[in-house]
Each structure stands twice: as C-alpha cells, then as structure tokens.
C-alpha cells in the first residue's frame, strides 16, 4: 500500500492492525461498486479505500422494485445483493482493481459457510485486494434462514472459516439489530476475524399511505444515512470499550468530517461512507480533507490520535436507564 499511501499527506495514513490505508475514509460496500463509475467524479487516489459491493458465489438478480424509499434523514433500501456472481467479478473487476491504485476490500456475502469460503478462496489473490469484509447480515439457509450476524455461533463459524482460508485481514461486518452486539463481536474476533465493520443498515419499513402498500417491493429494507449515525456511534463505542485494540471501521450516517470524527472518538480507526456518496460523490475525499484540517486545528499529528478518545473511563454504556 505504501505507493498509495505516499500519494496523500502521511499525516492521514492509518494502520488497522497492520492494514495500512492512505486515509481513514473508505467507501462502504454497495454504495460505490468497485469504483469504476465513481472514478469520473472523485479522485480515487485520494480515498482511503473501497469496499466492493458484496459478491456472492452465484449471480443474484436481486429483489423486486421499488428498491428504495426516502425517510427522514435517511433511506431504506432492499436490493437483495444483486450481483453477477464471483466468476463475473473475477473476469470484469479484477483487472480494474489491480490498476485502480486504491486499496480494495472485497465484500463477500452468501447463504452458507461453504459459499462464503469458496468465494474467499476465489478472490483472495486478486492483486490490489488488501482485505476482505464478511457481510454476514444474510440469511443462513442451513439454519432456517437465520441471519448469521444475529447469532454469535453462526457469525463465528463463517468468519472463522474465511479467516483460515486467507492471509488477508478479514473484517466482520455486524448489524445493530441484535440484543448484544458485543457478544457477536467477541465471537467473531475469537474465531479469527482481524477486525470489525460497524454497522450495516438497520431493518426498517415504510408504507405508502395512498396505495396501502409497503414502499419497498421486499416489504422491509435496510435503513441508512444520518438517521442511524447515533446507533452506529453507540455500537462502535460499546464494542471498542469491550474489545480494546481490535481494529474497527465505523459505518453509518457519515456525511461530514465531524460525523467521521465522532465515530473515531468512539473507537473506530477508520470510517466508511455509504449513502452520502449518492448525493455527494466526492464525500470520501471531502471528509478526509476535513479530518486533516481538524487535526491541524487541534494540534494533533495523526488520525490515530482521535481513536477512542471520546468516551468516559469507568462508565459502562450498558448501565442505568437510558430511555427517559
């Protein structure tokens, strides 16, 4: 990565347990493809990295439209992981990734431990790929469609299998739709995950009051955007407090440098920007520049100086009544 890192002020480079990235601001999975389209609107050389749209073993046609609905300060989406499958990914994206000159993490999704494993093996040697993100917010067909990320044992099994198959750092991407996210996070790390990406979208729904039908073809969908930022900050804080030293990428509602800094203060070493790319294609770069400016203003030398500095020692985020 050094060649990439050297292109931006060293002061923005970050190290996630050995994974060095030129800036702490990446593009989130499913919101940037592999960067090809966006390269016309943003200088990829200046972003921290790209997490690809999730790749599955087999092609997926995805869900029925409507696939999105705007909600207050956010949006719902139900795409259904549409993608052409890992074969097409190798034949069409691998070459692009190699020459893009930006760190790429391949996001992998599946319906069984075997699918995740096979795709991991197929993508692990693509030049330019610096890591893997396990999108485990998917139903496990071998377990009556339970979502992997909702159960520590299932999350651990799939992430463990993937980690054993590659030397690349594997980040487990977790959902906040659980009773105890720390439990799931611990299971993933114990199973061999290198780090964690927190959080995926939050399950939501909207109904068209004129037609009396759900506004998404799939009825429910994932909530993203600034609306969920407080949930993402909380999850990062809870997990970072419980698992000090574990590399965390904060995801959820990041639209400004201030948002990114909140997640870093909560304990994230880097952040991912999703929805904001849709309306501000250069958000990843603008946010990184904002972080550099902020560090300068605060007299700090590197992003790492922010990580985990926004909590209060000795306070357990679980205790006391937090709901009015």
């Amino acid at each position, binding site marked *: 990565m050094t060649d990439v890192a050297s292109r931006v002020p060293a002061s923005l480079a970050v190290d996630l347990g050995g994974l060095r990235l030129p800036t702490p601001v990446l593009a989130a999975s*499913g*919101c*940037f*493809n592999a960067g090809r*389209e*966006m390269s*016309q*609107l943003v200088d990829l050389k200046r972003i921290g990295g790209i997490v690809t*749209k999730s790749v*599955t*073993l*087999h*092609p*997926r*046609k*995805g*869900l*029925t*439209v*409507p*696939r*999105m*609905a*705007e909600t*207050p*300060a*956010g*949006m719902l*989406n139900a*795409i*259904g992981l*549409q993608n*052409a*499958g890992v074969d*097409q990914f190798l034949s069409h994206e691998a070459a692009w990734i190699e020459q893009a000159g930006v760190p790429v993490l391949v996001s992998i999704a599946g319906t069984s431990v075997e699918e995740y494993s096979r795709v991991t093996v197929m993508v692990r040697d693509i030049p330019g790929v610096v890591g893997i993100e396990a999108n485990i917010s998917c139903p496990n067909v071998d377990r009556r469609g339970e979502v992997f990320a909702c159960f520590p044992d299932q999350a651990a099994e799939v992430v463990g299998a993937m980690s054993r198959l590659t030397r690349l750092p594997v980040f487990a991407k977790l959902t906040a739709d659980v009773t105890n996210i720390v439990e799931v996070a611990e299971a993933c790390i114990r199973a061999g995950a290198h780090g964690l990406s927190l959080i995926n979208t939050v399950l939501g729904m909207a109904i068209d009051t004129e037609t009396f*039908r759900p506004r998404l*073809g*799939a009825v429910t969908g994932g909530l993203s*955007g*600034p609306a969920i930022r407080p949930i993402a900050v909380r999850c990062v804080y809870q997990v970072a407090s419980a698992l000090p030293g574990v590399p965390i990428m904060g995801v959820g509602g990041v639209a400004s440098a201030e948002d990114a800094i909140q997640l870093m203060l909560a304990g994230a070493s880097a952040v991912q920007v999703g*929805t904001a*790319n*849709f*309306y*501000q*294609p*250069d958000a990843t770069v603008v946010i990184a520049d904002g972080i550099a400016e902020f560090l300068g203003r605060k007299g700090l030398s590197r992003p790492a100086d922010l990580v985990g500095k926004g909590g209060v020692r000795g306070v357990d985020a679980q205790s006391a009544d937090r709901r009015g």
Partner: protein
Amino acid sequence: MIRRSCEVLSLRQTGAYWSVTLVAPEIAEEARPGQFVEIAVPRGREFLLRRPFSIHQASRRGGWAGTIEIVLDVVGPGTRWVSELTSHDMVDVIGPLGRPFQLPRGAVPSLLIGGGYGAAPLHFLAEELRRRGKPVNMIVGARDHERVFKPVEGKRLSDLIVVTTEDASMGERGRVTDVLADVLERTRSRVVYACGPNAMLRAVAEHCRTVKVPCQVAVEELMACGLGVCWTCAVPLVARDGKGWWNVRACVEGPVFNGSRIWWERWLGGARPSPAEDEPEAAEPPIAKEILRR
C-alpha cells in the same frame, strides 16, 4: 458525466410545469436526447437524495454561454424546492447521465410519443432528428390541456402532431394509445420514441411489438444515486434469445431501452412476486452483458 455548480439563468411556468434553465456549458456540450441530470438538494433538510430530471433542451452556444433546460412537475419536497429557485441561485448538477435515444439510419420518419412532462425530452430529440433531415411526427398526451407540454412548439417541430387529453380540454379525448395505431399508419413511421408514465410506455411498447415497429422508451424508476452504484433503479430485461432475464440499471444501461426487451409484467405487473421468485437462479449464467447489446 460531469459535476458542476451551475447558475440558474431563468425559471418560468409552462402550463402545469416549471421550466428551469441552467448555465452548464460542458454538460450542454455532451448532452444527447434522452439523457438526464441529477440535481442536489440543499443540506440540512429531512431529505437527502439528488433528484433526476430529463434534459429538455441543450443550447451549445460554445464558451460559457451553453445552457440546459429541464421541465418539472412539482410532486414533493424536492421538486418543490427546485421550483422555488430564483435566477442566480447556484445548484449542484451532475450530467449528462444515462444512454440517449439512438437515431435511425436513413431519412425514415419517426413517431415521438410524449405523456405529460415526458414530452419535454422528445423536443430535444425532435430537433436532433430534423437537423439530420429525418421527418418527425408526434403524439402528445396528458390529463388536461394544462399538462399538454408546449403543443405549439411541438407543432413547429413535427410534420404531424396529434394531441390527446383525458378530459378533451385539448385535441382528441382519450390517451395517446387510442390514436397510436392510426397515427403510426398515417405517418408510416418506422421508429417510435416514447417518454412518459411507465404504464403508457408499456402500452406503446406492446403495440409496437405486435405491429413490429422498433420502439425506444425512456423509463423512470426510483433512483437513489443516478450514477450506477446503488442498484435501486432496476429494470428487468429479457435476453435477445428470450431465454433468461436480468435486472439492469435504468440510470446507466437506461433510461432509454428497446421497449421489446423490457419484461413489463415482471417490472410493473400487478401482483408483486413473492421473495421466492427472487431467489438467485444459481444454474443460469449472468446475461447482463449480452442483454446490453442492443
């Protein structure tokens, strides 16, 4: 695909619609009929996403004078905000986006069918066709005369124009599809271009398929990005050999499609398919690439 901060040159009402002219030389230079732009809404609002609008006119005066014009119907907060812009306001625009209409080879006559504000991009197309000496005919339909888009302009642009309104307040009573067969015959049009409500596009495409006239439709589907990265704008296309289908992006592979390739039943069809139908068909190879060959 260019992103620019563009000055609002003028904003005026045309019937039920608003017409907005933006100073956007580079976008005007590249723009082709059928393409669209994405306009950013201001920060700090409850809604976040850009709004997509078809390009109605692109004046390539060269230098810094080039402008594009869009036409919009106020249906919600985004379009309301655009309609409240005033001259000299700056707006964040990305464009031109999507694939344009493909012009016919030779001087064959075309029939352009516009529903509501859908007629706006067809004026741009009509001018391009005439500049190349290709005869233009039009059917312009709407709910009422207020929503018949620029009929006088349309007349100027076409050899024959037929206007339909559902309330008979202008032209013939009914819908564009009621006069389609007749006008198609009378004008001997060999290509059909349509833009308007998806249900209208479906009816036009189905008629064209039966009478074997090639038909290009510019569709609308919810778009979160308009840039090809979110996959919300899915339209199901069938393989040329009729075997298999794939969801393509209206913002990149469209918004203009060969009407005979869209699987209308699946896309707009009444009963919403159950998730079962959406399970990946592992067996079948992705036909996306093939499908994009038109």
